[in-house]
């Protein structure tokens, strides 16, 4: 059975002026459906770049990425945007919620791209918010929520259109210990109970413990793969 994500000989080179920086070097990787994978490595190792490529935010210089049987490295920008809308949910370190919208409206954002009616959008958003345990905060704006709460709203937004893949870039990087635990527990729940495939970049080994696999990257190449028993 083929993996959900198949990465073959993936390379990414940035050209800044005259400089050529090779950030990823012939990376080879398979991610199975239902996996919860942590990507670790020192700063500059290329982990965020790899994440961005898997999530379809950027295109590789060389190699291929196949997600759910589709070669996303070949897609045009417009098609990639459509692909992202139905296949990927993003969670960022600094939440990236729209400050002028309420929590519910933030969660509804991805649904604006679908043909659902206003009532349906509202319903789906409510479901997502309940999943992350923030139903009573639905009307609040991000400015009125704590860091942990904002990140959970971001997670609700990421899952509201039921994407194939959840891509998280340092999701607990800006949170205190307790909030981080809440968020990671939630991610684990989504993975175990709802079968979401999650790829998480983190520099915190304690966060990585919540994942099923950890991958180490150094200077653009995979160094180590560790399987761990779920915590």
């Amino acid at each position, binding site marked *: 059975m083929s993996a959900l994500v198949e990465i073959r000989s993936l390379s990414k080179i940035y050209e800044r002026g005259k400089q050529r920086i090779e950030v990823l070097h012939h990376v080879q990787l398979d991610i199975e459906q239902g996996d919860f994978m942590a990507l670790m490595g020192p700063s500059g190792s290329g982990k965020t770049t790899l994440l961005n490529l898997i999530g379809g935010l950027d295109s590789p210089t060389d190699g291929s990425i196949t997600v759910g049987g589709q070669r996303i490295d070949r897609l045009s920008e417009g098609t990639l945007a459509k692909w*992202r809308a139905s296949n990927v949910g993003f969670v960022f370190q600094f939440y990236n919620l729209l400050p002028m919208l309420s929590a519910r409206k933030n969660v509804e954002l991805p649904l604006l791209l679908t043909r659902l009616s206003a009532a349906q959008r509202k319903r789906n958003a409510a479901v997502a918010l309940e999943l992350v345990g923030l139903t009573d905060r639905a009307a609040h704006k991000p400015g009125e929520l704590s860091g942990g709460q904002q990140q959970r709203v971001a997670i609700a*937004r990421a899952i509201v259109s039921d994407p194939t893949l959840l891509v998280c870039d340092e999701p607990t990087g800006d949170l205190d210990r307790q909030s981080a635990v809440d968020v990671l527990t939630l991610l684990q729940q989504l993975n175990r109970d709802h079968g979401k495939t999650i790829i998480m970049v983190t520099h915190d080994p304690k966060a990585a413990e919540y994942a099923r696999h950890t991958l180490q990257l150094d200077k653009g190449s995979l160094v180590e793969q560790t399987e761990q028993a779920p915590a």
Partner: protein
Amino acid sequence: MKYLQLIWTAMFRSKTRTIFTLLSVLAAFLLFGLLDSVRSAFANAATSVAGVDRLMTVSKISFTLSLPKSLLPRIEALPGVAKVTYANWFGGIYQDPKNFFPNEAVADNFFDLYPEWRLSQAERTAFGNTRTGAVVGESLAKKFHWKLGDKIPLQATIYPQKNGGNNWTFDLVGIYRAADPKRKSEENLLFFNWDYFDEARAFGNGNVGWYVLKVTDRKLAQQVAQALDALSTNSDHETKTQTEQAFNAAFVGQYGDIGLIVGAIMGAVFFTLILLTGNTMAQAVRERIPELAVLKTIGFSNHSVLGLVLAESVLLILLGGAIGLVLAGVVVDAVRAAVGTAVPMTRVGAAIWLRGVGLMILIGLIVGALPARRGMRLRIVDALAGR
């Protein structure tokens, strides 16, 4: 529109900035409403509907010169002429030069040629029968609190009476109303009997200021005009016959090229507005690059982002502009109520709104173009990283 809320909240991200920008846009379109109102008043002077089947005959040299009354039977005899009347400018003053309103000496059948002014049959008869009778418009009567039966004294500026005095007194026997409520400004005239005028004036007797004629068929207008003018070629009273529209247009055109002046001012206004608003939009979009990047990660296409920014820009201008035009409408109505025809202004109606909204959309698109392009072209990865 489901994206409307997104756009709306984006606009009000910085309340102060948006409100100040709205006020700038408001000012620009307030001005547009006022100036376009004046401009169309001058342009429309040439195209008022009622004047279409009426022709005016004045002295070819200038309407300030008179024509002999003896022309009347010859004009009446021309084929295609249904009715003819005549009038003289009197130019009298009521109490104070500041109270200026037009006053004319007219023939008995004058009102037959102006059906858009309603005068009851009884009042028409009274006018015909009363030597010193006068008919005024309802708005004028209201302004000076005149009632039927009042005596109205006018000081002559041009025509003294034979006895040397300047005082002419008339008896108010009729009040006319404009049939079209939008043309109430035409109710500011006073008319009195030409026969009395000609009998009592010290000079110029037997001469009229101008003739007004109605043709039997509009298609004959050109022909009739030419035939009429031919009656006086090479005489000492050469005539020029044209439609009322053409006459008004030529008269107004002598004041200056109003269209050009208004156009130049509005050009300056919109140029500075575009710069001002363009800068604000650019600033606003710059601040929101990370948010636009997030939208793209969610799956909004490049073109959707372009559309969102453009829509925001157009909406901003439409909002400010619409309020400005509404305000202009209020001001114009107030000015027209206060000074009547002293300052020619049309109501801020459908035509001005249409032009205004068109301009708003155009300016919104121009102002939003560059920021929208910037938003469309942002690279997600760079924008999220803050580069």
